[in-house]
Every structure is written in structure tokens, then in C-alpha cells.
């Protein structure tokens, strides 16, 4: 379980409130109009913004005061997920250890996870030699290797075209389920939500609402979601 208990975040004149539980398993989407605070929800969970009030607990552990790297989460951003000066294998290997050299076993794990995301043989290349889709795969591979129970995606595949994005979402669903990870995914595309997310958190007017089943939400959208989706929603 991932819990935001009476959380308030203030950023300049903007205030976001959240009081919700996200059950583990599967993919939970976070949607809402731009500027509504979708990414702020994720940043609060990952530890990149300080809370004005409330607690964050993940998998039964209060992490409100923990550093980003100490929280049981991995995060994939829209870009800058890989260090350009390190090889793909080194980048992915950072999921296992950040200090010292990798052992032979660790190297095998890196190769295995690269193969799992369809990047076999690219370990010696630099991120600049990979396409956008391949870079996303490498970031996913590192998250899989890190084995933190929650995976946060901040518009992670937003820069990819529709076909590639769907491919990545399917890969994410499969691999996260295999590895027993739960995912929380910020997106602005309703199609992504319907394709991959069992539950959805709607963020609107400075409030993050508790997650509800995606079909139910889209079958009978609340006003805020209707306004966001536009007049032809649901068709």
C-alpha cells in the first residue's frame, strides 16, 4: 500500500492536497489537466518536494523524511534518465550498486534484464547511440533491476510516438507484473490510461482524488474529468 495521509504541498501560490491510499499491484494512472499538480503528486512520493503537512508511507514504512534514494521507489522521468557518459550497461548496473565495480553475477543480471526489455547486445553503447524508445527501455531495465516495490513514471513515455508508447506500456505491464512491482504513472493521454491502468487517480483543482477503477471512471466521468477530456469523451 502507498499512502498519502492528509498531505499538503505548497509551491509558490499553488497548493495540492491529497489524502488517499493506492493499493499495490498493477498500474495506477494519475491524470488531470496540465498545471493541476499531477507531477507534484509523484514528486511528493519520490521525495523531490517537501510536504507542508501530512505523511507519506510506502509499503508500511513512513518515508516522509527519507532521502529520494532511500525510498522504496524507482522513478523514470520523461528524459535525462541515463547518464550520457556511462555505457548502457553501467547505467543499468547503477540499479544494483552505485559504489565499486560490478561482480560477474551482477553483470549477468544486467545482461539478462537488458535482454528482457529487448536491448540485448547494446550494453557497451552510450545512451546517445540509442533511439528514444531504446533509452526508455534501458531506464525501465534499471528500475526492474532495482527491485524497489513501487515504480513511478513521470510522463515517462511522453516523448515517444503513439505506436512506440503502446509498445512500452505493454512491456511495462508485463515486466512489472513479473517482477511484482506496482506502478504509478503520470500521463496526459486518456488512451494510455485505458490501455494500461486498472485504477486512476484524478488530479483537479488542487486535489488528488483517491483512485477508482478506470472503466468506472470513464463510464461516468465527474465534471472535472469531462472538462479535461472535452466534448467527445467516452466515444
Amino acid at each position, binding site marked *: 500500500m502507498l499512502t498519502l495521509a492528509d498531505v499538503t504541498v505548497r509551491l509558490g501560490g499553488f497548493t495540492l492536497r491529497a489524502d488517499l491510499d493506492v493499493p499495490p499491484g498493477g498500474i495506477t494512472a494519475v491524470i488531470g489537466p496540465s498545471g493541476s499538480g499531477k507531477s507534484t503528486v509523484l514528486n511528493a512520493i*519520490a*521525495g*523531490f518536494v517537501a510536504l507542508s503537512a501530512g505523511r507519506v508511507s510506502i509499503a508500511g514504512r513512513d518515508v516522509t523524511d527519507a*532521502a*529520494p*534514494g*532511500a525510498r522504496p*521507489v*524507482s*522513478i523514470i*522521468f520523461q528524459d*535525462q*534518465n541515463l*547518464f550520457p*557518459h*556511462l555505457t548502457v550497461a553501467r547505467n543499468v548496473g*547503477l*540499479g544494483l550498486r*552505485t*559504489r565499486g565495480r560490478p561482480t560477474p553475477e551482477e553483470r549477468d543480471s544486467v545482461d539478462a534484464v537488458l535482454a528482457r526489455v529487448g536491448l540485448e547486445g547494446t550494453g557497451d553503447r552510450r545512451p546517445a547511440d540509442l533511439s528514444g524508445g531504446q533509452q526508455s527501455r534501458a531506464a525501465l531495465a534499471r528500475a526492474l533491476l532495482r527491485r524497489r516495490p513501487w515504480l513511478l513514471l513521470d510522463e515517462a513515455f511522453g516523448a515517444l510516438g503513439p505506436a512506440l508508447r503502446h509498445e512500452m506500456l505493454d512491456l511495462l505491464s508485463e515486466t512489472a507484473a513479473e517482477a511484482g512491482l506496482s506502478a504509478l504513472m503520470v500521463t496526459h493521454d486518456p488512451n494510455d490510461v485505458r490501455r494500461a491502468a486498472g485504477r486512476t487517480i484524478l488530479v483537479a483543482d488542487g486535489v488528488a482524488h483517491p483512485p477508482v477503477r478506470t472503466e468506472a471512471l470513464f463510464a461516468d466521468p465527474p465534471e472535472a474529468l469531462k472538462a479535461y477530456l472535452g466534448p467527445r469523451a467516452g466515444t
Partner: protein
Amino acid sequence: MLLAPLIATLTRAEGWTGLRPSDGSALWFTLWQAAVSAALSVLLAIPVARALARRRFPGRGAVVLVLGAPFILPTIVAVLGLVAVFGRSGLVADLTGWSPPLYGPQGVILAHVFFNMPLAVRLIVQGWATVPGERLRLAASLGFGPGDTFRVLEWPMLRAVVPGVFLVVFLICTTSFAIALALGGGPRATTVELAIYAAFRFDFDLGRAAALAGMQLAIGVVAATATLRLSLPSGFGAGLDRPVRRWDSQGAILRLQDVACIAAACLFLLTPLTMVLAGGATHLPDIEASVWRAALRSLVIAVGAALATAAVAFPMALAVASGRRWVDVVAVLTITASPLVLGIGTYVLLLPVTNPLVWALPVTAAVNVLLALPFAMRALVPALRDLTADYGRLSASLGLTGAAWLRVVALPRLRGPLGYAMGLTAALSAGDLGVIALFARPEDATLPLKLYQLMGAYRMADAQAAGVLLVVIALGLFWAFERAGRDADAG
């Protein structure tokens, strides 16, 4: 580390009573020659900068490189070159039979223009680069001639940029020591820095030297404060490789004028250096052992100073990038402190503890580290800020902190600016003829000091050979460090 020598200096200054009338004329000469040098440098720089800004030609990159060279060229080598060209038996005298006296105020000013005109060109070219291409296109569509463009676009830009450039050059010229030592001197051409040296070295009058150091410091603070208030193009290299497309200056006469400006500037900068290298190369085999030993000392100082700069500048840059403004202020402060002021301060600090003269070499390295700090910070801080902006969250989310962050992220990403900073320090300290002249016992002579002594003994061929060696060390170290930093990016 920086403030201690400065405060120590001021405590030893026994009021202004220890000063002599000649010190007043040193103050006057310092300000006067700096103003003339700065004015000449800027005036000569403007046509060269304009030519570079509006022309594209093969070899433009090489010209830009030549303009950067005086910054890391050891001062005494340039002086030697100027003597070879403008001296009594120099190139100009040979060709024309006319030799203006080089020693005295005119020599000091000539050498200052040699060093600072290229710097002014680089800064003013950056000003030209700020004139937007859209504005020039608009001017072309309105049928502006070169005169119109100058009046409407270029003159306002120059009015904004030139005062800042003038002040920077002025500030640099007020701290001039090596040039005044070699080409000036006497009642007509003594700078405050040279007066400090004379008071300390010949009169053994520490109180008066300290009072003079206070005077020098005051000049630096006033000029630096003024500089900070004026707009100044930032950085030393950015924008130089982007000549803007121009439509108004395609006439044959203008072309000829620009070619002449660039050719004259290159001739002025390259001839002295060529004379030294050509004259010295043939004498290299005759170099005596004491010169080799001096060269070794210079090499050790340079490498030591480069390593120390990395060790000091890196934590300082980290502190600045994470928002501690006072560290930045310290780095700016070092610009106002001159080598001799810092040297005297260190002497006063060390005196109760040990014999400072024994520490001549480490002190030389340390003072050069302090002098190179502003440049190191200017290279490192923006790079660190970018690193935090681009990869700060990724590093934090992966738990990359402390030593692991340093090794995996920071050092590899910052090798470029770090290599540049270390190369710059190495070149500056290899060529230093400030602190070392103040402190050194004969057995401690570094290569620049040895060169100066050879010059003083009119052994010009030997001096030129030592000059070749010094250029190889200074420019070679700069190249090596900078190269080591750049390879990381490519690999």
C-alpha cells in the same frame, strides 16, 4: 586563506607616514599608464573585433586562438619578444634604422597593449555577437549602409560594452609587475607593485612595503567595484565561433580594411613570439645546467599549483552551486588582490613561524592558485549548475551521493572545465614572475626569474633559449591538462 594575508598586510602598514614622495609618483604612474594602456588597447581592439565579427574566412579559428594565447603566455617571454622587435638592436631598428627608446613608460604601455588588446578584442567580439541577426536582417531590408548600421546598431552596443572592457583592462594594468620590472623602473616608470618590490627587496622596509600594498589593494577594490557595476560580456570563449551574416559590409574597401586590421593584429602579436622562438631554438643545445634546474622547479610549481587548484576550486564550486553566495564573493575578491600584495601578506604571516624565504616555491604555487581561482570558478560553477539541473533528480533517486556521486557523475561530467582550470593554473604559475621575484634566493630561481636575470645580463641568445623552454612548459602543460579534460567527453 585569502583574507589572512590581506589583513596581515594591513596590520604591518605603519600608517602612511612611512611613505616617501616617490611612492606618490608611483601611484600616479600606475593610474596614468593603466588608463593609457586600457584606452589604447580598447581603441585598437574595436576595428579588429568588428572585422572578426563580420567576416568568415579560412583560418579565422587560428586567429581566435592567437588572440587567446597572450593570456597564458609567460609575461617575461613576451617582454623578451618585444625587446627583440622594438629594442635598440631589434627588428624595427634593423629594418628602418630608427629605434624609439623601449625602456620607460612607452615600453610598459606597449607591453600592456600587447597583452590586453587581444583580451579586449575577445570581449568586444562577444558584444558584437549580442546584436541579433534579425536586427541585421531588418537593417538590410531597410537598405542600411555600413554607416547606418554603425549608428543604429553597433554604436549603442559599443557604448554598453566598452566601458566594462576598459575597466577590466585598466584593473589588469594596475597590478602589472613583471612588465614594469623588465621595461620600467626609475622615477619615471615605477608602478606601485614595483615600489612594493623595491621597498621589500632593496630597502628591507617591510612597513613601507605593507603600506604600499594597502595602496595597491585600495586601487584594486575601487576598480573591481566599478567593474561589477558595469555590464560585461561573460566568459572568455563563448560566441567567438559565430560570425553573424551581414549584408551591409560587402564593399571592396571595407573588405580590405578588415583584412588589414586582422593582419596587423596578427603581425603585432606573432612577430615578437616568433623572434624569441626562432632565436632561442638554435641556442637550445647550449642551455646551461642552472637553467634546466630552474625549468624543473617551474614544472613542479606548475603541476603542484594545478593539483591544488582542483582540490580548492572543486569544493568551492560545489558550495557556490548549492547556493552559498559568500564563496562566490571570495572568488571575486581574489581578482582585486595582486600577486605582490598576496606575497607580502604571506611573508608577514609566515615571519613569526619560520623563515618565509625557505618557502618561496610553495608560496609561489599557493599565490598562483589564489589568482587562478576566479577563472576556475567561472569554468566550474556553470557546469555544476547544469549538472544539478539535468541529473540532480536522477542522482538523488538512485541514491548516488557523496563519494559515489563524485566518482560516477561529477568528475566524469566536469573533467572538461576542471582540465581547463588546471591547465590555466599550470600555465600561469609556470610563467609567474611576481611572488618568486619577491621571495627567491638565488638557489631557488624559477625559469621566468632565470630568464629575467639572463636578460638583465644582456645574454639575449641564452634568454631566448630559456624563453623557448618556458613557452614549451607553460603552453604544453595548458594543452596537456585541457586535452585530458576533453578526451573524457569524446570517449
